[in-house]
């Protein structure tokens, strides 16, 4: 699906050995068995997927190395002309977006007045949120105002989205406008 051409990677020398390394990284198999026997080269068998940095707006390319269901390394995408394989401290660290202990892995619910989170399943969350949205919306919906059709609710807000993908932003804008939300804002404003 994705063609990754790592030929801009900085190699020490363009020898046969290098070409072999390239093959290792590209095809995901290790030709250097002797080395693998003692301590396997960290990214020898990893799968490489290109992504774009999730932080600032520069848009640097990053390669994500995954192996055994985890992220083993992240580095600049040498093919991306924006950063040519270079990264800042944040971009270099995106590996820990996956590996950080702090990631929330289950939906959490906090009841009114409660002082703690309770784990819930997705189904319950979706259903309950949908209900809340409908309740609020139905109660506050304004169909017409001064003889104009306005079809809005001013009691629901949506904030954020500057880190979402375009496709997500599109669906979010579509959904919110579809609901009649006027308080629609994101980080461009702040």
């Amino acid at each position, binding site marked *: 699906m994705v063609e990754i051409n790592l030929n801009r*990677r*900085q*190699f*020490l*020398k363009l*020898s046969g*050995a*290098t070409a072999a*390394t390239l093959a*290792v990284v590209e095809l995901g198999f290790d030709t*250097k068995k002797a*080395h693998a026997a003692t*301590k396997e*080269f*960290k990214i020898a068998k990893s799968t490489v997927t290109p992504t774009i940095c999730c932080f600032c707006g520069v848009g640097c390319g990053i390669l994500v190395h995954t192996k055994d269901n985890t992220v083993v*390394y*992240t*580095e*600049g995408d040498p093919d991306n002309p924006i*950063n040519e*394989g*270079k*990264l*800042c*401290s944040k*971009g*270099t*660290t995106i*590996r820990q977006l996956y590996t950080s202990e702090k990631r929330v892995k289950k939906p959490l619910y906090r009841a009114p007045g409660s002082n703690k989170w309770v784990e819930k399943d997705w189904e319950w969350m979706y259903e309950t949120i949908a209900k809340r949205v409908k309740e609020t919306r139905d109660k506050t919906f304004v169909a017409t105002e001064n003889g104009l059709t306005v079809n809005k609710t001013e009691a629901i807000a949506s904030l954020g989205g500057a880190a979402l993908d375009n496709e997500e932003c599109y669906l979010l804008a579509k959904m919110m406008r579809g609901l009649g939300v006027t308080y629609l804002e994101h980080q461009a404003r702040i």
Partner: protein
Amino acid sequence: MATEYVKFVDVTKCDGCRACMVACKNWNDLPAEPQDFLGSAQSHVKTTADTWNVLQYIEHENSKGGLDYLFRHSACFHCTDAACEKVCPENAISYTEFGTVVIDHEKCVGCGYCVNNCPFEVISLKEYVDKNGDKYRKANKCTMCTDRLEEGLQPACVTTCHTGAMEFGDKAAMIKKAEERVKQIKDRYPNAMVYNPQGVGGTHTVYVLAEKPSVYGLPENPKVPTSAVVWKDYAQPIGKMMIGATTMAVVGAFITNKIFSKKTNGHDEDGGESHE
């Protein structure tokens, strides 16, 4: 050794982004170790067992009275004549074909001799806990990503450096580049210099510094400590010889004693027997 490689660090191109610090941790799977507030942007006072390179931030009033905000990627220098290698009692530290100096954790016993003899103070001991809950120590420092070099890749810090402050390549070419760079920047940094100290036989991390080494807390003329030279080049071999010689003398004495005793005494050890 085919080509000798060095890491060339031009601190005047560095903008202090610290990608090198995280790239190192990322590649080498090193844990974080947050420190107390140091009063500047700097995160660690110096390199540690889990932080193999530290970016220094120095506010320096230059000779013209202006303010320079200086940065330096500090890590192991990979000396040609490495004090750590010299003092290691277990031969756990060795030179690689790339000129890098690496510690073999299989051999390292955590004695800390290297830690205390490194003229740049870049080696640290780390305490580990084994399966039985027992603690043990190993010396740690930058490896120059020798594992990457072996695979034909450059060190992780160099790969990520975006300003071109770090390069990895042929030693002669890099040194030439460094010298030319110093000429270029003399106007802005009159004290600029190439730092490739000969006291340790030159290093495999060669710097262009904007200021005198002391501004960066670096020794002006680092050497393998004299004590280490005397110790390893003289005391240790002589000591081993002495032990050998003494042992030989004892053995010799024992044998001669036996021989003479047999000749002179019917039964030897006349003095001791009765006083058992």
